């Protein structure tokens, strides 16, 4: 298994849609074959269409607010000693997280395909909130599928979705979290694929959805590369790009321009959700060595039992609370280009507290997992090492959880 240079990772799959011959693919019911093929054809046309690219860039700049800033976390770095810690504040994007890139692109594709309805899944509620925003912006009717447990714990994002005119469909099956929301959204699409476009909220699902999402979030990386060159004149000799990984959309977006670099120069570190410290449940299929399985139309490392039943997961962060992971991250793991680890709920909370204490930054619980790793390794590294954390979400949505766990607003 080998990575190719100079070809975007999203395009390094074979004719059946597999990365490295075994991750990804399209394990879908017959009914979805045609809509998936139509979407695949449309996307490959659009991504080479200059007018469409101009439109995308226009909305990225004027609607999403690209570029988001790259800032040095001076106080945190000084406090920890060792490496310099920087943050790419992707949470500055319209809506407060990276999910807006994928949502905007899907809304544009939906329009281009002449469909009036768009549906999507959501865990933390960001993917849903952003899709509802984009739907409103482009005049589309929107339905969001969300686990009943997540609706309770991410209320601020639900309020936003409703305000944007989207219908939230609560999902009561299984663990009532993201995994069930994705299943239910796919079922809805099976029944309504003739009139409705489906947006998968991360770099997961059948091959084409991994590609569209990765293509959208890659904007983060394009900005970052320019910003690093402006800050440091060239790409520094030792960089670590640390990102949380649930489905893996923000991590791919953060890394895509840097995959061709040697890992001794640019290390890619993915941080999964380890769950509560004493719990056996986790959402860390890569770092805790889950077996390959098929979930939501793709083969990837999946938390599952011997029989192939998907495990329930547990994490303080709804956005990372997912038993599977993107096939492209499986590919990056097996080719050893990226390193994957996990942070527990407690470590993420501690990181959140520390970052907000020292910096004017309010990372949500998802990127707090990435900060936990940065905080752990920074003191052991030399000053010439540059750690950049993707602060891909804002903690406003975590208000209730933080209040409950830390007793603060």
């Amino acid at each position, binding site marked *: 298994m080998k990575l190719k240079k100079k070809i975007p990772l999203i395009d390094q799959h074979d004719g059946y849609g597999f990365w490295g011959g075994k991750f990804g693919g*399209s394990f879908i019911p*017959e009914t979805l074959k*045609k809509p998936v093929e139509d979407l695949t054809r449309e996307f490959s046309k659009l991504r080479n269409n200059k007018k469409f690219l101009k439109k995308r860039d226009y909305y990225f700049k004027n609607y999403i607010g690209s570029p988001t800033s790259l800032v040095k976390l001076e106080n945190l770095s000084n406090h920890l000693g060792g490496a310099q810690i920087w943050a790419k504040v992707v949470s500055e994007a319209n809506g407060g997280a990276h999910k807006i890139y994928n949502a905007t692109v899907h809304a544009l594709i939906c329009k281009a395909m002449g469909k009036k309805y768009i549906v999507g899944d959501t865990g933390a509620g960001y993917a849903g909130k952003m899709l509802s925003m984009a739907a409103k912006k482009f005049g589309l009717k929107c339905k969001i599928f969300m686990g009943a447990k997540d609706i309770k714990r991410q209320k601020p994002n639900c309020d936003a979705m409703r305000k944007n005119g989207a219908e939230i469909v609560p999902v009561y099956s299984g663990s009532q979290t993201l995994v069930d929301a994705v299943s239910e959204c796919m*079922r809805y699409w099976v029944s309504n694929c003739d009139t409705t476009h489906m947006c998968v909220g991360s770099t997961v699902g059948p091959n084409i959805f991994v590609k569209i999402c990765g293509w959208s979030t890659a904007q983060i990386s394009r900005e970052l590369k320019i910003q690093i060159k402006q800050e440091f004149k060239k790409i520094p000799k030792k960089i670590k790009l640390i990102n949380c990984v649930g489905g893996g959309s923000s991590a791919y977006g953060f890394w895509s321009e840097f995959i061709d670099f040697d890992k001794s120069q640019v290390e890619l570190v993915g941080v999964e959700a380890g769950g509560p410290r004493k719990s056996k449940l986790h959402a860390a299929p890569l770092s805790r060595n889950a077996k390959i*399985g*098929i979930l939501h139309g793709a083969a990837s490392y999946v938390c599952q039992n011997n029989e192939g039943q998907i495990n329930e997961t547990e994490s303080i962060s709804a956005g990372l609370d997912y038993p599977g992971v993107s096939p492209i991250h499986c590919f990056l793991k097996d080719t050893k280009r990226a390193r994957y680890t996990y942070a527990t709920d407690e470590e993420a909370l501690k990181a959140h507290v520390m970052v907000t204490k020292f910096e004017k930054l309010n990372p949500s619980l998802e990127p707090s997992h990435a900060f936990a790793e940065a905080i752990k390794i920074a003191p052991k590294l030399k000053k010439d090492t540059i750690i950049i954390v993707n602060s891909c979400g804002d903690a406003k949505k975590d208000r209730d959880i933080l209040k409950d766990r830390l007793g603060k607003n």
Partner: protein
Amino acid sequence: MNSLISKTFSDVKKENRPALLTYIVAGDNTKKKSLEILKSISNHADICELGFPHNTPIADGGQIQTSAYRAIKNGIKINDVFSISKSFKKIKKNKPIILMGYYNMIYQYNENKFLEKCKKSKVDGLIVVDLPYPENRNFASKCKKKGINFIQLVSPTTSQIRLKKIIEDSHDMIYYISMLSTTGGKLKSSPKKILEKYNKIKKQNKSKNVVIGFGITEKTIQSLKKADGLVVGSAICKEISKSIKKRQNAVTNVTNIVKRLKNKIL
């Protein structure tokens, strides 16, 4: 193929009626109970489908999901599904049995081992919901080598070119999904439209047995009796749920439904 499945179809054709195919989830609500139900309904059904339950079933509606979750909760394992099939076949050796489920279960069990076990348990056919053509070509040919029917699915969205290829690659039976829906949806296409598409499939190759499924209930079954076979699943699972809730005998209730379904197509 001189399979039990094709023999069954030619037998019912002589009676001038479609085959009745029933679907239940193995282990719903217990291993023992589902075997009893299977044995009892097979007195009226021509082909029995047995689902191996998965907890992330992306193409199933509420009724079958409920049955699947219930069976898993009660501890059903894939080996139990095989043992149900084996026990069933001991007393009903001429009744075809088709296992139906999601690919991850087969993948985790190992394709070859799974098929070996199917063979030993006298399974006649397999439906894998999320392994479409052409991804299923390799597995389908493995099935053929073992003398197990791999049943291809065709849906209203299947293009003409695809249809041709799928039929070429199919074995004795093809499953036509009546409408854009998960299992158990209300029949939203007219029977006329469904039969039009059905005839298109038949026209490609008359020797293939084409069954229609999704949305088939006591109300709708009669209108589609021109087909080679009709599948009823969710309506049966619903009856099992109802019987459990009302503390009634699921075996009797489900058998009665299947009897009534059969009478409508005689």
